[in-house]
């Protein structure tokens, strides 16, 4: 067991991936000498050289577009997008190229590209450093999308994403970069595209991913003190969704609440609520409810605590679900 912050777990995972496969190339803005604005690539350029840890020009479409060419040449690019709001200059390359080239070439051109995006709010920054754009990517066929919530997953899932033959958009909960946990670097991890029950319970199923898993666990803890038993599932994979464990859970609890930071309208919660309703209709005691960001522009940081779901807002919606 090693105690790692989530950020250091990512760094360690990147190092391992680079040691395991000489075709892994990191690309991004300020990822070399500086080690990235969040220091996730700290020390890697020094150890692996400038050809494998590339400080790119300041142009996100260029990062992803050249990664496509490198992938065609047999490389496995791992691209860092500095902040969630900065992914949009690269959106064209991600959606029209990265996501489609495998299908267009009937599999002759695999796109093993990992796109790392620090996402979510809670760090007191401007709006383009605080957003949750995962639904745009989960909606795009041809991409796979995951979000990590804890140091062990950060270490393993990043390596699994890099090894994946398909493009993976990898969301990192930036406000949890400094959270610490014990990580077993030797245990075999669960498959990448699987969700996982992280707290067992009987009365309600609470779904979350990325930064909201911690919030959901805190809510479940608080609810227990009020005598409610809440099961928490960390979705981990957003596309494809792995709803098997969710359905198994909801059939037992009869109630389901989905939590995410992203705006609620057409967020992941909408798709999950639909699918859970379709598959568990006869078991449901209440409609599937959502707790998310309001459908507004991400607010100035003085207001973000009001905007983001927190323990109290989650418990409030849990109460509503229980009252049905």
């Amino acid at each position: 067991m090693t105690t790692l912050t989530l950020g250091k777990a990512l760094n360690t995972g990147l190092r391992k991936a680079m040691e395991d496969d000489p075709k892994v190339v990191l690309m991004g803005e300020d990822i070399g000498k500086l080690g990235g604005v969040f220091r996730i690539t700290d020390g890697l350029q020094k150890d692996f050289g400038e050809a494998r840890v590339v400080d790119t020009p300041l142009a996100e479409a260029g990062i992803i577009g050249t990664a496509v060419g490198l992938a065609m040449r047999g490389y496995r690019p791992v691209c860092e997008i500095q902040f969630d709001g900065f992914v949009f200059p690269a959106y064209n390359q991600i959606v029209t190229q990265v996501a489609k080239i495998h299908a267009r070439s009937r599999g002759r051109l695999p796109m093993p590209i990992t796109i790392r995006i620090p996402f979510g709010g809670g760090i007191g920054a401007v709006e383009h450093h605080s957003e949750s754009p995962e639904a745009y990517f989960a909606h795009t066929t041809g991409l796979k999308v995951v979000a990590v919530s804890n140091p062990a997953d950060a270490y393993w899932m990043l390596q699994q994403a890099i090894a994946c033959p398909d493009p993976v958009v990898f969301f990192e909960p930036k406000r949890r970069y400094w959270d610490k946990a014990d990580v077993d670097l030797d245990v075999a991890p669960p498959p990448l595209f699987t969700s996982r029950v992280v707290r067992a319970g009987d009365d309600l199923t609470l779904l979350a991913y990325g930064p909201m898993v911690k919030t959901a666990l805190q809510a479940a803890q608080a609810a227990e003190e009020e005598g409610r038993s809440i099961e928490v599932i960390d979705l981990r994979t957003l596309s494809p969704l792995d709803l098997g464990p969710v359905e198994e859970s909801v059939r037992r609890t009869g109630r389901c609440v989905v939590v995410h930071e992203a705006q609620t309208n057409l967020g992941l919660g909408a798709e999950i609520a639909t699918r859970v309703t379709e598959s568990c209709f006869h078991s449901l005691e209440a409609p599937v409810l959502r707790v998310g960001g309001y459908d507004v522009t991400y607010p100035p940081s003085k207001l973000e605590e009001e905007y983001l779901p927190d323990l109290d807002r989650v418990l409030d919606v849990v109460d509503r679900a229980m009252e049905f």
Partner: protein
Amino acid sequence: MTAAPEMQEIVDPVPGAGEPHLPAQPDLVQLLTPEGERVEHPDYALDVTDEELCSLYRDMALVRRWDVEATALQRQGELGIWASLLGQEAAQVGAGRAMGTGDMAFPTYREHGVAWTRDVDPLHVISLFRGNDLGGWDPVARRFNLYTVVIGAQCLHATGYAMGIQRDDAEAAALAFLGDGATSQGEVNESFIWAATFSAPVVFFCQNNQYAISVPIERQSRVPLFQRAAGFGFPGVRVDGNDVLAVLAVTRAALARAREGSGPTFIEAFTYRMGAHTTSDDPTRYRLAGELEEWKLRDPIARLKAHLSRSGKAGPDFFAAVDAEGDELAVRIRKGTLEMPDPAGTEMFDHVYAEQTEEIAAQRAEFLSYHEGFEQ
């Protein structure tokens, strides 16, 4: 108040409009005049055998025959759309034949002439425009990427591929094709920055065919396109795009320069799209017939034919044989198109991912079961 400086005319979209010759453009590389006269250029010597000249003529003539047949097939309802290369045969064949076996081409959607030089079966290009697939050839085996429709996106792919060549320490180069309109795209400009700062072995081959669908070059640039390269820190060359020999020589030199580690080059092949943008377009709405007539006098195939004939390097038998070969090719294309089987419905589910997801596998099963329901 000082008088405004006299406006300098810096863009000449159709040099020499009104006369059938490209006028003296000091920067234009030309090795074969529109009349078919072989001329020398101090920077671009080219030794070609008579056989090579005949082979270039054959390439261009066959590619044009293919293009004519494809346009006819579209008019007869057999293709959804066709993007004609009429008039750009020299630019494409010259660039394609300049490539080495290890080089990789990144085309737009009009590079049928380059496809020809990379031994891509014309029917594999036709199948895309017929709607049978999203690109039927093997881009890895042919070293000719799939067509890219989002304008300019391929320039970054070519640059990234060239960065891979650097990391492999290989003697190869990437050749990115783009049009005049694409030079306005942000991604294309990013690819220039990337290529320059990493000194990547990539050549940007811009066919300036004077129009981005309907919009003339003046709306894309206030300077001749080849001059833009200087601002990015690499050479730019303007070549007579209707002169297959000049294109061959200039592209060969640029690719050699890239392979030896001296970085990118921007080539502006100055040419003209003699046909419509695609079969859905109507060029009479935005350009004058006289302009086309002037460019017909600079036809890339006619000028090489004139050279071969006048110099005695090829005679009527050769031209008749190429014509006959063209007719055979057209028959093969027509027959192959009409006999092309429709794709299976399940095809659309099968290649979305390298590792199929349960979600799409379930939709595929549902699709099959839905259709089986009709058969009972």
